[in-house]
């Protein structure tokens, strides 16, 4: 079993002018399902296409067009639910959420209000070793994404593109269990990591494939505990929803601003109006979205074009049987199998590619050494060049080859770094490259002994000094290595110098 014992972090407390306040945050994450085609049409989901080119007549809501569901999207929702230890509902249904907006061609969004496909689950969000927040998931449902309106191409017109319309989203709804801006960002990071492990969403926030609606309220210390004890929301403050956030940094800034705005109103004797707000990063403030406010009556009802979605337990079991190892389990295994520190294990399990790379290097080798090389040398170098692990010029096999040469004593650590550089720029089999370049540390004691003898003989004054102060023996070691063209094994040289000097 995984050891997930932890203590809960302290909530963020903001000191108001009059007294202290705590934050209460719930999130709705919209994660785009990594499918080829849309949820209810056969149009492509690819990003960056010509406007209105990834559009089927269904997506443009042409008269008489009908939805047919993409089974892969259903499977990904189930997989995500299993990854969040959630209930999978064998019977779910699609509802229409009705509202008028130019980027919503049907005049309704097909979603799942009454019977979502996934029920309650949880996410463990670690904030530091042993300190973690268990965030409860309320539900996950499948729904259609809207299109995109562009407002800055013409002074009097908005331009509408339906490429995104109908792309499958999983809306992952948390309970209000998040207690501060950092926790919110950590929650999104963890959820994103899990989704990427599962392969159900690519997590690309820049393209909007993962976006968050953040519900923020503030309350006096002690109120939240009353809520948790009773699940009665009346103990909490009125919330505002900040829509459509796709940057970890902005999520934190927006929450902080919104909390302070609410505190200022409350301390001034005012009350919070429940509303939808938009974060403006240029001004670092949130403002009310009036357009979304008027006539908030979505008239949900079951979509008569679709039948209830019934899935079989055997199918769910089959998906469960093909689940990958998830981040928490992988991290625990890396720590126990490879002796990694908590920090190193976090870094190496941040994404599947890094974890896979590390594991390939570490397998059958010194795990700690492999971790050092992957984190310090490889990641350091990749970061410097702004490259991703999948584009690494040095493969796990090559890096493993370098580590093997160190382990067998054939090259020194210094040589290994040089060799890494060569492999990075020129490629090749490390053993062959080392051989071709004569990169071989001398371990033949005879040759080294000769060099040591020569240097001792040529430097009687240094010998005296070293005998008086053994720390100065290092000078001889350096001279010997220099004399052997850097090829001598430093450990061997050390031992010989010490012996010859009688230290």
């Amino acid at each position, binding site marked *: 079993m995984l050891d997930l014992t932890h203590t809960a972090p302290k909530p963020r407390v903001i000191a108001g002018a009059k007294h202290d306040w705590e934050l209460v945050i719930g999130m709705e994450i919209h994660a785009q399902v990594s499918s080829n085609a849309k949820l209810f049409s056969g149009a492509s989901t690819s990003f960056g296409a010509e406007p209105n080119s990834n559009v089927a007549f269904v997506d443009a809501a*042409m008269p*008489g067009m009908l939805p047919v569901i993409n089974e892969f999207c259903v499977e990904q929702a189930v997989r995500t639910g299993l990854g969040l230890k959630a209930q999978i509902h064998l019977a779910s249904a699609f509802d229409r959420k009705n509202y008028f907006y130019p980027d919503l061609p049907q005049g309704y969004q097909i979603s799942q209000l009454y019977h979502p496909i996934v029920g309650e689950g949880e996410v463990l969000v670690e904030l530091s070793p042993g300190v973690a927040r268990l965030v409860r998931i309320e539900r996950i449902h499948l729904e259609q994404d809207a299109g995109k309106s562009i407002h800055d191409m013409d002074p009097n017109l908005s331009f509408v593109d339906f490429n995104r319309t109908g792309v499958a989203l999983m809306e992952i709804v948390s309970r209000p269990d998040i207690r501060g801006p950092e926790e919110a960002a950590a929650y999104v990071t963890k959820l994103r990591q899990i989704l990427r492990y599962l392969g159900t969403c690519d997590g690309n926030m820049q393209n909007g494939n993962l976006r968050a609606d953040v519900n923020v309220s503030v309350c006096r210390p002690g109120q939240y505990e009353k809520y948790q004890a009773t699940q009665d929301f009346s103990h909490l403050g009125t919330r505002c929803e900040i829509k459509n956030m796709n940057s970890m940094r902005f999520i934190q800034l927006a929450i902080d601003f919104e909390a302070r705005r609410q505190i200022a109103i409350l301390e001034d004797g005012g009350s919070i109006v429940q509303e939808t707000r938009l974060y403006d990063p240029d001004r670092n403030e949130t403002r009310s979205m009036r357009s979304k406010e008027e006539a908030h009556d979505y008239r949900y*009802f079951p979509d008569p074009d679709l039948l209830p979605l019934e899935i079989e337990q055997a199918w769910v079991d089959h998906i469960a049987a093909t689940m990958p190892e998830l981040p928490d389990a992988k991290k625990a295994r890396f720590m126990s199998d490879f002796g990694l520190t908590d920090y190193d294990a976090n870094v190496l399990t941040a994404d599947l590619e890094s974890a896979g790379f590390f594991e390939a290097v570490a397998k059958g080798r010194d795990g700690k050494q492999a971790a050092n090389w992957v984190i310090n040398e490889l990641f350091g170098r990749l970061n410097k060049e702004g490259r991703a692990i999948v584009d690494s010029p040095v493969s796990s096999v090559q890096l493993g080859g370098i580590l093997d040469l160190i382990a067998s004593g054939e090259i020194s650590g210094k040589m290994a770094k040089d060799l890494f550089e060569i492999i990075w720029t020129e490629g090749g089999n490390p053993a062959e490259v080392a051989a071709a370049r004569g990169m071989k540390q001398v371990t033949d004691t005879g040759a080294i002994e000769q060099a040591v003898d020569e240097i001792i003989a040529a430097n009687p004054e240094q010998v005296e000094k070293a005998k008086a102060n053994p720390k100065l023996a290092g000078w001889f070691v350096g001279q010997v290595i220099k004399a052997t063209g850097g090829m001598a094994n430093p450990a061997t040289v050390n031992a010989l110098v010490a012996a010859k000097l009688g230290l």
Partner: protein
Amino acid sequence: MSANTWTIAAARDALRKGEITAVDLTMSCLTAIDAGDGLNAFVHKTPDIALDQARAADVRLAAGDAPAMCGIPLGIKDLFCTKGVPSQAASNILKGFRPEYESTVTARLFGAGAVMLGKLNMDEFAMGSSNETSCYGDVVNPWKVDGRKLTPGGSSGGSASAVAADLCIAATGTDTGGSIRQPAAFTGIVGIKPTYGRVSRWGIVAFASSLDQAGPMTKTVRDAAIMLGAMCGHDAKDSTSADIPVPDFEAALTGDIRGKVIGIPREYRMDGMPDEIEALWQKGIAMLRDAGAVVRDISLPHTKYALPAYYVIAPAEASSNLARYDGVRYGHRAKLSAGDGITEMYEKTRAEGFGPEVQRRVMVGTYVLSAGFYDAYYNRARKVRALIKRDFETVFADGVDAILTPATPSAAFGLGEMSNADPIEMYLNDIFTVTVNLAGLPGIAVPVGLDRQGLPLGLQLIGRPWDEAGLLNHAHVLEKAAGFVAKPDKWW
């Protein structure tokens, strides 16, 4: 007799024997259509397409590769999207709309070699029972009394009028609450609404998705069997289309219903129902009994609530289905004044584009789905719907094979006669037909006689789910026994 008066069966046989070409048959219909403008049935004529298709049909006929519908000229209700041809659902909001796609039903028919003569008038978005809500104006029934113009019924009024007046051999219709059966009864023709899911809805402008079904409107039951066979079948593009085999409906017309059990629902005997309707019903009962069927009184206790349930569910679905007509992607967009924004564009476009009945139903639907009323209206109506369906399931489980009822509470009434009536009075036209849509069952209207004024009256047979074959056979027996051969006097 001019070829446009033929049935599908007669035309098929003549085409196959080479007694007529599809082009000549089509020409005869095109001539009748041009002479029939006074009926206002055809709203977009497509003679070029028709002749191209007829020529292609003649090639297939000559090659011996001719399905039953090959070369048969049809009228197509304006609710069907037909590629490149105006498809407006008789609404101004779809003004100028020419779909870039072909509905599954028309694609199947044309694939079988059928010929499209043009698009047929209807009530706007299929909402109406008198064909007076069309943006193209009223359709006129070819049957007339004392020189008075009568409604052909609705919403498939153009289809009914065109078939009854022999402007085409047959036509497509759609039926959400009786829109095939009521106009068929008003014009003395046959109309069948198949089991929900039998015919694909893809490419048919949606009115109420859980109730809409397309079906044929024909001169005889045999024609209905032939044409239905070509229209139905599984469609992967419609999630509600059933993946079950399509039997040979025509082969099912054995004329033998001996021992079959016919249910007569007592709840369909409405207060104030005209004597003539009651007499017609009794006549039908006698005909089926004479043919060897066992007639049994049955009870469908929730019948009374079908109409109110229907008028919650259909407008609710319609209010959502019609949200897409917003002036953004196709059809009408209102001219805007300075300072008008997107909301004004929506509101003006929809006010100008939708007629009064459509507006009324969209607003009723909006209201019953709105916060606080959903359970009281919509969910309650869905529960009542479940009970109505259960009523039918019970009698079928008790061994009833088909149910005989009147098709309409009256014969065709005068155009404009109901214009000042309460909307509810118009809705009462659907009283015998809506139960069938709510329960998803197949239902057929068959002309059985004439009333005192000489207007056609029809009876309705309701079948078990998916048993269109049996239903058609019962209808075939009734049709034979009734021997209805009357035709309207040509005045147009």
